[in-house]
């Protein structure tokens, strides 16, 4: 139950990243996605994995809060197509994760699938560096979570690596997004 709810929160965060252009909207999206992904990680890999993802995601979100285009800019004009993409991704992802794929961990599969797909779409549409970097940071967190699907259950190192990359991505290029 917690895994499913956390997966929904991850989708919500990814949707915010897709639908926002301002630094506050993007920051909130990364933070919400990190909370959702960490919730799923808590269920499948334990508290250290969840804490790593949460810390990395929140740090990346805090860095994003400080740089990028000002304001929230959630759903600016012309966002209808992206809203449809978010809803369609959720429906399609739910169908794939719950009906086409089999076995335990439906929430994990859904969270990893929709986050990666929506961030891939976001990077193609990003006009500014802040949006691109937010998408990249969220992809890093999702890749770390997707490692839990591996038959050789990964340790918490992959979560630490994902969190570190998410922070690094946002930190290294944070000053270069203001003009975007």
């Amino acid at each position, binding site marked *: 139950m917690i895994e499913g709810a956390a997966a929904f929160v991850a989708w919500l965060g990814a949707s915010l990243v897709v639908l926002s252009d301002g630094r506050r909207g993007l920051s909130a999206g990364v933070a919400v996605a990190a909370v959702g992904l960490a919730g799923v990680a808590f269920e499948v890999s334990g508290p250290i994995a969840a804490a790593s993802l949460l810390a990395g995601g929140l740090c990346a979100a805090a860095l994003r809060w400080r740089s990028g285009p000002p304001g929230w800019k959630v759903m600016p004009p012309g966002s209808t197509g992206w809203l449809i993409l978010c809803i369609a991704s959720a429906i399609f992802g739910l169908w794939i994760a719950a009906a086409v794929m089999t076995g335990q961990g439906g929430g994990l599969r859904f969270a990893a699938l929709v986050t990666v797909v929506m961030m891939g779409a976001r990077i193609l549409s990003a006009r500014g*560096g802040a949006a691109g970097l937010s998408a*990249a940071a969220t992809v890093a967190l999702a890749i770390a979570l997707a490692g839990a699907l591996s038959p*050789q259950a990964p340790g918490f190192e992959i979560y630490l690596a994902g969190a570190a*990359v998410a922070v690094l991505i946002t930190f290294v290029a944070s000053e270069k997004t203001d003009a975007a």
Partner: protein
Amino acid sequence: MQPEAAVLLVGAAGSLVFAVVFGPARQPGILLLRGGVGLVAMALIAVAPDLDTALLVVLALAVLQGAIELNRGLAVRLRAPVFAISLVALALVLDRASGPAVLHRFAAVGIAAGLAAIVGLLPFMHEFDPAEAVSASPIGWMAFAGPIVAAVLVLDSRRLFTPDTDAVFAAILIGLGLLNALWGSVSAWVTEDGTAAWRYAFMSDWGLVLCGFGLTVADGQSAALLMLLSIVVCRLPLYLMSRPALREKTTTDRPVNLVVAAVLSGSAPFVGFAARVLLFRGATELFWPLGLVLAVSMLLWLPGSLRLGRTLGQPRGRQLVGIAIVLAVNTALGLYPLPVLSLAGT
């Protein structure tokens, strides 16, 4: 660390040292710093315990490279590599989940498409600015980091695939390889801009690499490794040497230009020739019409290579010494590829 990746890493390190010592870089210190960071990232990719960790390092490298120069805008520079990483990550999710076989086939499509997108091959060519520094341009992916990323991605993902999925993966690689080999070699010949011609030549070499990886016989894997090595230790250093003449748009027809054209076209006794022989043998062993198509496509290298050889200008002094070293290394690798292949375990 995979032995293939180790061999390519040594080749990349050699190319970096070559570029700093003999290359025309105006700020060799900055080149060394950027290349050194790239080499560290490539080493981390090579020693990564799983594909997820390797993908995370590639992602970090993509952002670091994207932040070097912002002529094209950060979002534009991040677009291709981050999209590629998303594709591969999606493919890994599809491959690891239990379900119908079609999911695993989609995973094979995703990995092959992601590989093409990371390197910047058709149908996912990166945006290219001829005036950009090499370390910041898509050539960095095609000729420096791309070979190791490709080796790790292809060899690691093959371990995950079932025989059915592997067959799909091989077919896609061969298809993409032929497309890039033909498109790249013809475009290197007919395109107007000299720097773009070099970029298309890299693409055509990558076409043969993908074909080699797609051939599920030992000769194919050996050919792919040798082609990757030839990109790193032959085409990349020669491209760096040609940058000043490309900027000045000067072309010359001296003997050295013809020898360089022979190296670039994969003539004997250089390393490209050994790779082509192995590739041709592997293709004939697997499905002879494929060998025929490859043989025809290999002929298309000649006009483009003659053109690229002329763009080298009139090398003198240190530049001439550098070119002599490149030719010597390529001759040695072409005449004696077995030590390298045995080191790489192919």
